[in-house]
């Protein structure tokens, strides 16, 4: 089991008041066939609904307004028509949200390729428009969304999105101190069986159908990547201080951590581990359990111990 640092940027979701540069490349906006506005004066609410409807229309669809109606509400400039001016906002809207999703899912973007990822994002934006002031959780539906999309291997894409989203969540989870063996040494041995360990609040244990952590690691290291065959894996994603970690978990460790996370005492958690190791020779059993426990503590999976 190796614990790998996720070499993501120091902070995700950096927002700015700038207009995305991709708002600029210009194509003639297609004309829409929505009803034309005949009123010259609209109230503020109606103008905003009209403007927002155009801006949020997918770029590969005609703007839901014709040139004449657009000119009734937006003036032309010396160089751009009314619809072209509105289209700057439409392009900016999609570019900004695609940038956000790319920020969350750089490895998924790599796996799908730029064109397919952008197409996926455009469908995502249409299906899950943002409704809040923050974009921190805008990408939260991506894994489920991928499963229902016409992708070459939707299960792989969904697992990869699950892993990348867990990284995002760990960044935004509360920062907590982690305990080590020196902390455990403070607990009298007779009280160990009843001790309870609380897990790191950023911890997510993922059960995945594809070895996407290895894929992600290869991408991060600049190594060749290829669509892997399905193979169940479990990965812990969590943060200690500024570092986000990905740790592939053996089944015994999953059993222990999940038991402790659910409130089991140390004795009960280790008993579950022992039960999961049925068939393992007696002389190996103690060593495996000890290794499992030591590994979970030294990896920073726990934040406190109570007796």
């Amino acid at each position, binding site marked *: 089991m190796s614990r790998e640092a996720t070499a993501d*940027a*120091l*902070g995700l*979701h*950096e*927002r*700015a*008041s*700038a*207009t*995305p*540069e991709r*708002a*600029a490349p*210009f194509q003639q906006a297609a004309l829409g066939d929505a009803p034309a506005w005949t009123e*010259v*004066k*609209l*109230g*503020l609410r109606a*103008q*905003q*609904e009209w*403007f*927002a409807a155009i*801006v*949020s229309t997918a770029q590969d669809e005609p703007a839901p307004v014709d040139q004449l109606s657009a*000119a009734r*509400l*937006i*003036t032309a*400039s*010396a*160089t*751009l028509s009314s619809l072209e*001016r*509105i289209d*700057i*906002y439409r392009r*900016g*809207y999609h570019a*900004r949200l695609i940038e*956000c999703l790319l920020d969350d899912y750089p490895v998924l973007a790599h796996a799908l390729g730029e064109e397919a990822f952008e197409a996926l994002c455009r469908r995502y934006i249409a299906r899950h428009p*943002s*409704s*809040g*002031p*923050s*974009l*921190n*959780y805008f990408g939260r539906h991506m894994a489920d969304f991928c499963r229902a999309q016409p992708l070459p291997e939707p299960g792989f894409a969904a697992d990869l999105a699950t892993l990348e989203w867990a990284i995002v969540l*760990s*960044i*935004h*989870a*509360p*920062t907590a101190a982690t305990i080590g063996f020196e902390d455990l040494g403070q607990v009298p041995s007779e009280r160990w069986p009843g001790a309870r360990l609380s897990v790191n609040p*950023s911890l997510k244990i993922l059960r995945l159908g594809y070895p996407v952590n290895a894929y992600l690691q290869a991408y991060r290291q600049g190594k060749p990547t290829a669509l892997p065959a399905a193979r169940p894996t479990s990965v812990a994603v969590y*943060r200690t201080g*500024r570092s986000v970690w990905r740790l592939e978990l053996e089944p015994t460790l999953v059993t222990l951590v999940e038991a402790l996370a659910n409130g089991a005492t140390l004795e009960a958690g280790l008993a579950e581990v022992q039960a999961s190791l049925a068939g393992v020779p007696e002389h190996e059993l103690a060593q495996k359990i000890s290794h499992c426990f030591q590994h979970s503590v030294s990896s920073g999976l726990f934040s406190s111990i109570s007796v």
Partner: protein
Amino acid sequence: MANRFKLPNLGIGLGLRTKHYGVILEQKPAVAWFEILSENYLRTEGRPLDFLDQIADIYPVVMHGVSLSIGSTDPLDRVYLSELKALRDRAKARWVSDHLCWTGVAGKNTHDLLPMPYTEEALAHVVDRVRAVQDFLGAPLALENPSSYAEFAGDSMREWEFLGRLAELSDCALLLDVNNVYVSSKNHGFDPLTYLDAIPFDRVVQFHVAGHTDHGTHIIDSHIGPVIDPVWQLLAAAHRRSAGVPVLLEWDAEIPSFEETHAEALRAREFIGAAA
């Protein structure tokens, strides 16, 4: 005192960007102040706040938001306002700013700074909302003139008149982005000095400068690259009309090293004098 709100002239500051966190925390460079993007530190309990706490312990911080949506016809988001207030208190932010714009309607957020129609109806609407926000925050709100790419046919006044009247009627502060004045002047064909002449400078608590991208038919406020000379000249013109206002450089795309970014910000001294 630089302005009617008695907010300090902090000097020349920088927009805080994640790329520079490491240098800032390790080297603690001499920067007068940082402006944070408020939304980068909202709806999180984790690492972004860890960095902010450390930086706010060392440097003066000002908050700049993009989601207030002061011009929207949707109700004000009270939860967002509460979060904004809590963040201000946590970071000990000197003031809070956002944009004269709307970002969405009917419950959806485009996360873009969409243009306002400049009408009496819109003015009355925004004045009421600015007052409500200021009452909630218990402090003046600074509103920034946005870059815009479209103007409404039904406008009954120009942006500078709208902004000036809004400031007077709501008693709000202004964040004057001279790059935005320049960008909009090119996109809409007006004299930027006419814009400056209409601004009540006793209400201006901050200037913004930034780079942009000229596409020939229009200019995009991309915050890419160094500030061009006409924008610096516009800063100088704005500075002459003021009694001393802090200057902030925004650089949001293809962000260079901290040293290069800071050096670009400090170029402001050439145009407003070494006293800043």
